[in-house]
């Protein structure tokens, strides 16, 4: 008996555990955070709705059904299943407008985040790499921008350029620029003192190669996190600007301006007011949840 057990223990192959690839490792940490996964799922659904709005939405966002004004949601008295979330004051289907609105919000978020990410990385790399006067100049400007509440600065920019979606997106990307500059600069400075950067420099790598090929990939983790969180504030600011009448202009199905249009019907039709805001909240919450999960998975140092 004893011999047999001995042989059986030695029979178990003693292979070293296969090390996880970085991606697997990332997914391991990320998927252990239930909130983050929930956020990811919601974002996936919203993106799907945004891309396939033409097929998903039951009606056109601008079709006015004159015989169905301010119809309540389907499950209430007087509701109609062809307008699941009810209709607004000119008889447009709220669900369809929300679906088309997601297209706008995601697009604006994407444009604003990409624009500020690119500009922020460039400025941050330059400031962190060259240091000295350039650094001081860039950081002073960033400090000035940070001294202003983002919404106020966005309002100021839209006030100059005139209210429209494009200008609102531009304003939002300018407003969120400082965070990316600061993050990139700090990460660049930390990487600059590493040996691998010194050795690449000794081999004769050009500054451009050093900045974009050696340093940048190692700074990406905090930037990805910030970009995700930036998405949520872009959507929130966009909706706020729309609500104040400084973003998307009326017939456009944008969540914030839908709310502004609905203001006068607060007392008569709660659904006109409730659903667009709920949509904003869910989307922003999903991005924040995913951002928190990404931060924990990508950068344990940042974890609080």
């Amino acid at each position, binding site marked *: 008996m004893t011999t047999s057990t001995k042989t059986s223990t030695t029979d178990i192959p003693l292979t070293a555990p296969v090390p996880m690839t970085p991606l697997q490792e990332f997914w391991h940490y990320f998927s252990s955070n239930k*909130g983050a996964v929930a956020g990811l799922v919601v974002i996936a659904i919203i993106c799907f709705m945004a891309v396939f709005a033409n097929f998903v939405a039951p009606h056109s966002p601008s079709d006015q059904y004159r015989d169905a004004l301010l119809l309540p949601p389907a499950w209430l008295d007087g509701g109609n299943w062809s307008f699941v979330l009810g209709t607004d004051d000119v008889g447009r289907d709220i669900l369809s407008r929300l679906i088309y609105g997601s297209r706008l919000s995601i697009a604006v978020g994407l444009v604003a985040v990409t624009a500020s990410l690119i500009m922020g990385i460039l400025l941050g790399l330059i400031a962190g790499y060259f240091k000295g006067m350039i650094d001081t100049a860039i950081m*002073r*400007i960033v*400090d*000035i921008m940070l*001294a*202003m*509440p*983002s*919404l*106020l600065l966005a*309002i*100021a920019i839209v*006030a*100059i350029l005139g209210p429209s979606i494009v200008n609102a997106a531009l304003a939002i990307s300018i407003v969120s620029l400082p965070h990316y500059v600061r993050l990139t600069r700090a990460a660049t400075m930390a990487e600059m003192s590493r040996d691998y950067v010194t050795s690449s420099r000794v081999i004769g790598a050009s500054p451009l190669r050093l900045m974009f090929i050696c340093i940048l990939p190692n700074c990406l983790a905090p930037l990805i996190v910030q970009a995700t969180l930036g998405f*949520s504030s872009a959507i*929130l600011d966009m*909706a*706020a600007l729309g*609500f*104040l*009448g*400084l973003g998307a202009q009326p017939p456009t199905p944008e969540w*914030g301006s839908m*709310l502004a249009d609905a*203001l006068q019907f*607060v*007392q008569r039709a*709660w659904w006109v*007011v*409730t659903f*667009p*805001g*709920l949509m*904003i*909240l869910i989307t*922003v*919450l999903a991005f*924040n*949840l995913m951002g*928190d999960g990404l931060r924990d998975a990508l950068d344990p140092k940042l974890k*609080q």
Partner: protein
Amino acid sequence: MFQFIFRRLSLVIPTFLGITLLTFTLIRLIPGDPIEVMAGERGVSAERHAELSAQLGFDQPLYMQYYNYVTGVLQGDLGNSLITREPVMKEFLTLFPATIELAFCAAIFAILIGLPAGIFAAVKRGTVIDHSVMTFSLTGYSMPIFWWALLLMLVFSVNLGWTPVSGRIDVVYWIDDVTGFMLIDSLLSGEEGAFSSAVSHLILPSIVLGTIPMAVIARMTRSSMLEVLSEDYIRTARAKGIAPWRVIVIHALRNALIPVITVIGLQVGILLSGAILTETVFAWPGIGKWLIESIGRRDYPVVQGGILIVACIIIVVNLLVDITYGIVNPRIRHSR
């Protein structure tokens, strides 16, 4: 200490100049001739144009215009409103108390709820309480506050009729403007019911404006408390047999509060920009509503001046927070 304060003060000057440069450029970036924009659709004759141009200093070189603008600003001269012809500074000063009153009450609400919630979550780490506090605070943090305002209004004002929908006080009361703060003025007026009317008008806007700061404070308090609670001196205190509440309130909280105070200070920016949205929804006659209306009326001097003042307030508050932090925490004071 003085060296630290001096160093922080010297950083403020370039920031201030940068902001004046921004607001100075703002009015010049507006497409078209500023005088024609000011004159509106009526248009102006050539002589009047030259006259106005000289009066407003547009005929001088740009650097002189900027110099005059900054010296004017330093003397509190922000120009006149195009609509009311009143000095911008005067309009600001009459409206500002309303915003301070609202922001102050919102901050009180945020601290009263956020701080205990954060402490509670940290002490009960990993329990249902902790998770629900964190869920609520993340929801609060993601809240579109203009919608939150409408929702609360819908439930408490429209359906339940508990609170008024908008404004600062019932129209039946005529309150003398003594301090500009409605709570104080209504008390001073001695009119029956005026004070409670003012309070009931404040409740919903304060909750709305305080929601995001509350969420931030709760999160910060929790993480700061967790850090402190894991330190050795807390274990020592517990081992000595000190009552659990005493360890938490007296020993842990005092140290945990340092970063929280900074975060509370930094909420001023959030409060002031949130005030723009909250005041618009609740028709609260403060500077946020004033700014938005001025943008709608293309009253550029007001927009320019209003943005400048708000930015300056935030710079000053951030400076004060930094200095307080330096006083409380010597490590900050002595580090470069």
